[in-house]
Structure formats: C-alpha cells, structure tokens
C-alpha cells in the first residue's frame, strides 16, 4: 500500500532550522531550509547528510519549497544549494524571493564580518542560489513535473508567507510554514480550502496558548510608549527590519495621529526604509483594509516616522526609535541602547524572541549589570519591557485550520515537545485523526489509500446510469459490470463487448443443449404453448416470447418441442442456452424436467 513519509531534519519538536523532508508518490520534497538562531556550530544548519552521505542533493530532491523569509526557514538555503550542492528548482513567493536575499546577506555579514567566521557562504553564493528560485503566485497550480504539483495559499505570518499544498496523483500533503489565523495591522489571516490532504504538517509555536486579544496587547504597548514619552523619556524598540517593524510603525503612526503627539519617531538604517518600499510594491499581499485604501493613503508612507541619524540619539527630549537588529546583539540598536541605558526615564521594548547569549536575552532575564567589550560594565537603569507580537497561530487557530482543510492525519513541527504533546491529545480527541510529532531525524510513515482513477466508456456509464431509473438518485446505488483493460499506464473500463472489439479478440461461444423427454398427449404446438403459459406464470419479470417458427424464447434461451416418430406422446424438449445465460438455463432445465 502506498505511503507518505515525513522526516524533519530541523523543527522536529524544536523551534529553529525548519527543514522537513517529504516523500510522496515517489517524489522527494524539502520544505524550508532554515538555520538555528541558538547555535553557532554545525548544529546551526540541518544535517543534510541524512539525504545523502556524499555528493550533491540534486539527484535526491525533486524540489525545495521555502514558506517565508525568516532565517529559521531560509537561512541554510545558500549553504544547501551552493556548498552541499543542489541545482533543482527552489519555490517561494515573490515577496519572499525579494526579501530573502537581503536577510541572508545581513546574516552573512554578521557571521563573517563581525564574528570573523570562515567557511561560510559568500555573497556570490547567495546570488547563485537565488537564480535557482522559481516564484510562486498564490493559488497558482505549479506543475513541478508531470506528476508533482504544488499550490500556495496565503499564510499571513509575514509579507509573502505561504502555506503549500503538495499533490502527487490523489495523495497530498499541506505544509503550513508559520501562519496566523487572525488578521493584524498589516496582514490578513491565513486561509485554505477544504483540500483534505493525507497529512497536514503544521507549526505549533503556540500549541498551548490561547492568546489574549491582540487589541489588549496593542493598547498595552501604546500605553507604555505614551507614558514614557509623557515623562520625557526615550523609547528604543529593537526590531528586525521586516515584519513586526511595519506593524508597530502603523500602530504608532495611527496613535500619533489620533493623539496629536509631537515627539519624533525615527527609523534606524536605510534597510527599514527600503523594507517599507517592499511593502508598498507588494501591497496585494497585505490585508484587505490596506489594499483597499492604498491609492488614497498608502499605509507604508509614514508621516510621523522619519529616518534616523546617529547624532539624533543625543538630542534632548522624548523620542521613539526603531533600530535593528532585534536582539540587541550588534549594530545600531546596541549603540543606542548603550547611550540610553543609564537613564531610568528611558525604556526599551523587546517585541520578539531573543536567543540566549544576546544582550536582549540577558536584560529580559533581569540582568542589570552587563559586561561590555574591554572591562567596562554597563548599568542598566532604563525600563525593560517584553511584548510578544509574533504572528503565529495559537491553539485555537491551529484547530481552526484543521477544520478548514480536513486532513486525514496531522503532523506537528516547529514547537516544544511538551506543548506539542498537549495539542496532539486535543487534536486526536476532537477530530479522531492520528497526530504525529516526530523528533529531528525520525521518520513518520502514513499509509494512504488512494482510489484508482480509470476511464470509463461513456456508453457503459450511460447504460448503467439509465438502469438506475430515469432520475439519478444518489442514495440508490447502481450495479455496473464491465471489463477493465490495463495497457501500459492507461486504465479503461468498457463493456465486455467493447473490450472484445478493442482487443481484437474473437468471442468464444459456449452453448449448452439439453434434451428433456416428457409425456404429453397434446400436439407439438400445444405442448409448446402450455410450456409458454407455465413459464410465463412462473418467471415474472422475464421476457418470454412465443415465436411463430415454433420456439419459445426465455430471454435468449431457446426451447423447442419435437415428438418422436414412434410415439406421438413422447415429446422431446430441446433446450439450448449460451454460457451467459447459464444460471437461467440451468434453472429452466431443472424446471422442465419436473
């Protein structure tokens, strides 16, 4: 029986370096190719030696699909394609294709230039890798080859995030990537049709949380920023250039407008501004409200938010600054942090997850004295706030997606084992489907039971449909008999007569003749007529004909009567039928013997 195999190389009971291998209908697909933020050694990337010990991956993979531009989903892509070696197609949406290389280059710079690592992918490798990318449009059915087709659905998590439906024959898998089931300030909600995949592979970052309403968190955020500004403090928001930054900008922009605030809001670095350009050009990927009004007012052309210059950091008075990177591990956000850390009026708001070892992680854990390079220590006096704005589906959202897609099996990745376990139980209970949560390197095999498509001759179909009565009644099953011809890869179902004709086979007639002797004083024709009336009363619902040439036909069974020359009363009944009427023929012969 055919089966689908799923093996996570990363993101199996873990968050980070998402990379999931799927084997379906003889095709091998890699879903995402990410890096792990928490490691600096080999564990940073998925273990591609699982696919092949030596040589390139091209021969072992039919395609690679990237769900969105976050590095934990695409960070290992140039390493995989250029250093391990893969030349096949890599699919991603247009916005992902646009933004992914920028983030990769950023990542490379930090790793190689700042940390001085060697043996890392180069700028040229990023470019070469991006050349292998084939852009995907939403809902477009892309034929990877004759059998494998993929289709992207809106996932909402970040600009250009997609879920993919992968189909070979009648087997299919859906991979969600990261998704969000509630629309936010700039993106819409994930959506999928009732595609009934054999397996739904879903992220489960918030497997156990039912998040409080987004509005509350937003109000909280605005309140904190506002209070800090009111008392003349400076607010630092370390962000990554794309994604949450835009959402928070829209939030602040509308708040500033409504409250008529005058304190300046700044963006650091050119990248963030460039990022806003992407949002403007890919406005069709944002939420309905922004799309509808973009001609009158482009939400990504901010009135109150201006470009930052490092000299502004020393300006007196309140201000809000968005600066990269998001974990305070390097760059402008760190510089500003050092300047502002000493003043308790100031505030830093961390809007996302921070990896261990970063300053962001330390201050969130309440560390108040930081050792800086050299011997200097930094006293952290400013207020530290954490606000999660990351857009993942919560438990409710995951259940909602299952209801939408109606999968036959469920597989959880991109989450913590303990939380997954809880959600798994809930899913199995509520939907009565199997739910898997393989660890990295562990394979799940799911048996599928595909039905076999065949081409049925319309004549036969119509004949069978007509037998079911004049009106088609879906509740009443109709029987059907025919011959299936299997020739190479084609399967045709035709009537037996047509099969003989198509295969140029001659029909072999098998006939039986049976003589029954009986005594009857009537003449031959009268005997025949008595048999006729007898059968007529016996066999209701059969066509019985009395033909003028002295035969009785029951369906196609011939009955003749002759009398022997010696004794006119000794009649011989001649009964003749073909093999196709075997049941009736044998029945008649036994009836007539009595």
């Amino acid at each position, binding site marked *: 029986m055919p089966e689908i195999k799923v093996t996570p190389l990363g993101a199996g009971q873990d968050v980070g370096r998402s990379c999931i291998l799927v084997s379906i209908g003889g095709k091998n697909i890699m879903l995402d190719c990410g890096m792990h933020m928490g490691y600096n050694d080999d564990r940073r990337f998925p273990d591609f030696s699982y696919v092949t010990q030596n040589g390139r991956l091209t021969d072992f993979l039919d395609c690679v699909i990237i769900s969105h531009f976050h590095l934990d989903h695409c960070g290992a892509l140039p390493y995989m394609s250029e250093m391990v070696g893969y030349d096949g197609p890599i699919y991603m949406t247009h916005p992902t294709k646009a933004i992914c290389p920028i983030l990769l280059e950023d990542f490379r710079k930090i790793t190689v230039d700042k940390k001085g690592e060697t043996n890392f992918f180069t700028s040229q490798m990023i470019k070469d890798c991006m050349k292998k990318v084939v852009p995907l*449009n939403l809902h477009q059915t892309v034929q990877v080859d004759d059998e494998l087709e993929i289709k992207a659905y809106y996932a909402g998590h970040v600009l250009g995030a997609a879920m993919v439906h992968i189909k070979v024959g009648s087997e299919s898998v859906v991979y969600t990537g990261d998704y969000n089931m509630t629309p936010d300030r700039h993106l819409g909600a994930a959506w999928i049709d009732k595609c009934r995949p054999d397996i739904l592979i879903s992220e489960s970052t918030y497997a156990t949380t039912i998040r409080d309403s987004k509005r509350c968190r937003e109000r909280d955020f605005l309140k904190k920023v506002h209070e800090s500004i009111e008392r003349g403090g400076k607010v630092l928001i370390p962000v990554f250039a794309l994604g949450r930054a835009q959402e928070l900008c829209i939030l602040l922009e509308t708040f500033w407008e409504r409250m008529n605030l005058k304190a300046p809001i700044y963006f650091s670095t050119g990248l963030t501004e460039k990022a806003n350009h992407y949002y403007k050009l890919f406005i069709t990927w944002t939420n309905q409200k922004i799309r509808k009004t973009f001609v009158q007012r482009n939400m990504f052309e901010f009135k109150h938010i201006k470009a930052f210059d490092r000299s502004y950091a020393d300006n007196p008075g309140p201000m809000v600054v968005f600066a990269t990177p998001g974990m305070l591990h390097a760059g402008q956000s760190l510089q500003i942090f050092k300047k502002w850390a000493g003043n308790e009026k100031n505030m830093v708001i961390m809007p996302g997850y921070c990896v261990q070892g970063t300053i962001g992680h330390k201050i969130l854990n309440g560390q108040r004295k930081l050792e800086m390079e050299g011997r200097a220590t930094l006293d952290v006096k400013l207020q530290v706030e954490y606000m999660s704005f990351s857009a993942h589906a919560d438990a409710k959202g995951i259940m909602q997606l299952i209801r939408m897609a109606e999968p036959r099996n469920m597989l959880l990745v991109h989450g913590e084992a303990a939380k997954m376990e809880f959600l798994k139980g809930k899913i199995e209970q509520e939907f009565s489907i199997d739910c898997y949560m393989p660890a990295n390197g562990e394979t799940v095999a799911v048996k599928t039971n595909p039905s076999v498509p065949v081409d049925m001759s319309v004549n036969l179909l119509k004949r069978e449909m007509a037998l079911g009565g004049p009106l*088609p009644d879906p509740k009443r099953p109709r029987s059907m008999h*025919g011959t*299936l011809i299997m*020739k190479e890869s084609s399967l045709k179902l035709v009537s037996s007569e047509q099969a003989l004709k198509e295969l140029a086979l001659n029909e072999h007639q098998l006939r039986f003749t049976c003589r029954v002797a009986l005594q009857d004083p009537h003449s031959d024709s009268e005997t025949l007529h008595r048999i006729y009336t007898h059968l007529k009363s016996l066999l209701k619902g059969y066509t019985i004909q009395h033909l003028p040439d002295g035969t009785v036909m029951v369906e196609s069974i011939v009955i003749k009567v002759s009398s022997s020359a010696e004794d006119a009363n000794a009649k011989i009944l001649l009964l003749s039928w073909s093999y196709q009427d075997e049941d009736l023929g044998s029945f008649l012969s036994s009836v007539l013997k009595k």
Partner: protein
Amino acid sequence: MKLYCLSGHPTLPCNVLKFKSTTIMLDCGLDTTSVLNFLPLPLVHSPRLSKLPGWIPKDGTMNLEKELKECAGRVFVDSQPEFCLPERELLDLSTIDVILISNYHCMMALPYITEHTGFTGTVYATEPTLQIGRLLMEELVNFMERVPKAQSATSWKNKDMQRMLPGPLKDAVDVWTWKRCYGMQEVNSALSRVQLVGYSQKVELFGAVQVSPLSSGYSLGSSNWIIQSHHEKVAYVSGSSLLTTHPQPMDQSSLKNSDVLILTGLTQMPTANPDGMLGEFCSNLAMTIRAGGNVLVPCYSSGVIYDLLECLYQFIDSANLGTTPFYFISPVANSSLEFSQIFAEWLCHNKQSKVYLPEPPFPHAELIQTNKLKHYPSIHGDFSSDFRQPCVVFTGHPSLRFGDVVHFMELWGKSGLNTIIFTEPDFSYLDALAPYQPLAMKCVYCPIDTRLNFHQVAKLLKEVQPLHVVCPEQYTQPPMTQSHRSDLMLELQPPPMPYRRCSVLNLPFRRRYERVYILPELAQSLVPTEVKPGVSIATVSAVLHSKDNKHTLQSVPKPPPVPPTKKRKRVMEEPPVAPKPLLSGAVPLEAFLATLQKHGITEVKVEETADGHILHLQAEDTLIQLEEDGTHIVCDNNEPLRTTLRDLVLRFLQKL
C-alpha cells in the same frame, strides 16, 4: 455541447458555452461603437454644439429636429450616448453558472448581465482584471453622470423612422436594445460577484468541469481560459499578444491538444505594426510641440498608455521635451497609475525583477516624481490653475463622445498648430471626428493594437494543434476594405466554424470516456489476467455511486442477513448479481482431452469436422463440439456432468 454567440463584435466577445452540465459565459464585451451615432457630451457649455441645426428630411414628413442634429453632412442623435449590449434573448441569462473574464476590456457589459436578469452565478477574473476593470467602469459612469442630459431620444428608433434616416444611422442594428450606461450601484453589485483567480489555478465547477486561466500577454492580468474535463478540452483564446510589452508573456503550451479552440480578439489593425506606430507617435508628438502646438491623445486610462508613457520616458530627453508638461486627465488617472505598480506578479520578467530592488516596475513613477507627468481627476479644479501650453494631454474617452477629451477638441480643434494622435484601435478616427468637422487641427492615426495578427495566429494554431477552431465570421474572409488581401483571414484545415451574433453552434464533440474512481477495496479484489503481452484485463462488477458529478465504483456489498421479523416486508433490494462474462480464446483439443482424462472421462471418440472436432463421450452419451470460436455441449439429464464439463471448458478460456 453548444456555443451561443451573443455578440457580433470580434474583439468584444460574449459567448455562452454549454459544456457537460455547466453553462459558462465567456467574456462580457460591451460594444461601445454605437456611441459614435450620438452627439458629444461637452463638459462646458459649447455654443457650437448647441447651435447645430436639427435634421429635416428632404420630404419633410418627419419631425425629428429635436432628436437629430446635423453636423458637416452627418446626422447625430442628441441624447445621452447608448451602448449596444450582448444579445439577451437567445438564452435565459439566469441559467448561467459562471462567467469567465479574459481581460478588463471584455467585461464592460457585466452589470447588464448580472443585474436584473436573475443571474446568481459566479464571475471569475484575475485581480488586475477586476481592479482595472472596476476603474474603467467607474470612469465610464463618471463621464456620463457628471454631464446629465435631460433628453432621451427614442422616436428615431421607430422602425419606420429609422428606415428613412441617412447612413450610418439607417444601418444601425437592434437600436431598440441599446441601453444607457449603468450606475455605480450596479457596478458594485456586479463586481461583488467576482471571485479572484491566479494564472494556472484550477477551479472546479460542480465537480464536472475544471477551468483555468492562462496568461495571454495582452494586458495586466489578461487571460485565456482552458475549460476541460478529464477527456474533453476547450481552449478559449481572447485578446492575446506575443509582443514584449508590460504584461507577463503569453502561455502557449497549455493551449495544446484542445478539442475545440474558440478564437476571438485578434488585432483590429492587421496591417499596422505596433512598433512602427509607436515611432510615428513619438515623432509627430515632438514635431507638434516644437512648432508650438498642443498634442491630444484620446486613450483609455489603462493599457497601452503605460507603454506610451514608458516610450516617452526614454524619448523625452533625447527629443528635448524636458520642459513640456504631460497631463493625464481622468477620474481614475491616479488609481490607474498606482495600481499598475503593485501587480508585479502579473508583469513581464524585466518589470518583475525591478520590485526585487525594490523599485517601481513602471518608469512613470519617476515621471510623476520629477513633475514631468501630472495627473488630474478632471479639467476642473487644480488642473485649470496648473495648465500650461504647449502641452501633451492624455485623456478619454477614445470615442470623443464623452469625457474630458470633448473639451480639448472644442478648445484646440480650430488651430492647425495642434495635433490629435489616435492610438486606440477601437473606433474609426473619421467617425470619431465627424461631429467636430470642420476641423483645422492635424490628425494622426497610429493605432497600436498588440493583439495577435493573422500571421501569428496561424503559427500559434500550428503549434497548439486544436482539432477544431471556432471564430467570428469576420476572420474567415478578408476585411471589406481590403478584399484582395487573402493573407488577412484565417485559412485552416479543417476550415474554422464561423459564428455571428445570435448563432448557436453545435460543437463537434464525441464524449467517449468519463473519469471514474475505483475505491481501494474494490481495486484490491480485481484479478487481472494477461491476454496479450502488456495488456491485462479484469472483469469488474461493482456498485456505481454518482455524487456531485463524481463517479466512484465500490465493491458489491455482501447481502446482510435478513432479520427474521421483517421477512414479509421486502425492504432489502436484491443485491445485483454479476452476469456471466463473455468468453474468448479457443479450447485446444489435446490439452482438453488430457484434462478430461484426469477427471475420469476416458472413453472419448474424436471425430474431425470441417470447423473443428466433435467429441463423443461414449460412457456418458454426451457430445462436445469444439470449434475455433465456439464450444457446444449437448448433455441430457446429467446436470453434475454438465457443470463439470462447463468448468473444464472454462479453464481454457479468458473471461471478459
């Protein structure tokens, strides 16, 4: 399978395809050439137009002076312009299941079809087609509504009256069905029925038919459509282009192997080369400006204008036009320019890769930024204060009957310094200009129609090899004005099936196979036997389920034990009994005799006949006649023997 043809206009088609159990409308084109029979609607009071004399017939019998005005020997209807709608009587529009739109020019009649007709179906279109189509409809409504005309002329439509009128009014057809423009409410309601689709998306209709749009290369989001079931394929080609302009290139390969290809929307200017026309456009524009004149370009607010602006972007500096103001005036000018920049997915590769930088795909963004191109919703408001001459004005409507263009015709028509350059191919420029005669302004006609020409279409058809081609009758003969040009028509083998307005064509389809699904349980129970090398057969007895146009075959259920209490009520239907299969092959004599022997039948007398052998089983007094294509068992009163013999014979035969 039938095709109902509701429009006679080859580039503004409206056909209805009945395919399997679905009714599919292909496009919804609105023939606007009818407006040429009407007087222009001026934005500002025009003394010239209002003083035009009423038309008086020679014999003076009719009094239509109020409705008909005469200008330079032509007669015009003085009323709000009306459009020629797709035929609405040929079939019940409420039975239409879906409407497939191929591009934004071919959907302008949508509100007439979806509103007030009982239509309850779905409209499928791509996102650019919907958004730009909405803009064009809004513009049309705006043009009509901002200069309301009290008078509605209907007397001239009277058959007896119309007969007496001079041409072309006299020859106008179905004038009674002409309709005024719809309103915004109808537009919104019609467009709310649109469901968005992406290229190559497969949309299932009632499980019976799958439709899929393909890039057609003509305009933003323009598509051809594939309508197919598992065994039949119809390709609908409408407004396609092989030239490299801004849209994504045409997808040709997916059109292959169709049973029927419906071909519409070929170029209306088969002899005009678009590149040449573009060159002429630029040089005439530059010449006029240098001489101190103004240039008027009547155009639609989306489409070729993007290419014209791109061409000018490269041309402006080299032609020293850096200081000349370019104005684009339309109620939707801003929207059209903005929308063009956000559909990167639907653009050609070059433009697409620009957004990765990130830069706007069209250079008109830069023209606007540098203030070389300015856009206004109308001539009123800001425009009147910014207006500087000499200048270039792009504005609609290309028919010159309504929109801001009417104002510029009145303003600039009297000076020979000015030039009007026609770029849209939809209207005859002479007819368009007729109500403005006499005219001193220079006229240049460089129609740019990027749609397929006859040479390209012949090549395309050779490539994609449809079994049959259906096309408007206009394509099966050379154009009337160039009757000797046999290269300007379709010549195919077999010849294309022509249609005209109100035709109903029977499409040559023979449905021979239908896709059914054998459920796994049944599939496992089948026993295939090889009848020839590589060919196997299996007899199938199954229960057929048909639901939502999907057929599945299941195993015949075992008759459940009848509960004894319900014996009298025959609730259970008899389970269907499989009939005996047909047989094929032959029974070999020697092997058969050997088998008989094994079963204890030894006394066999074999007699050779012309066609085979007769076996006389002497002990049993039974005859078996073995022939190439038949076996006859004559056996009296010995049913066990007969069935044994039967089974032995069957061993040698294949069952079908």
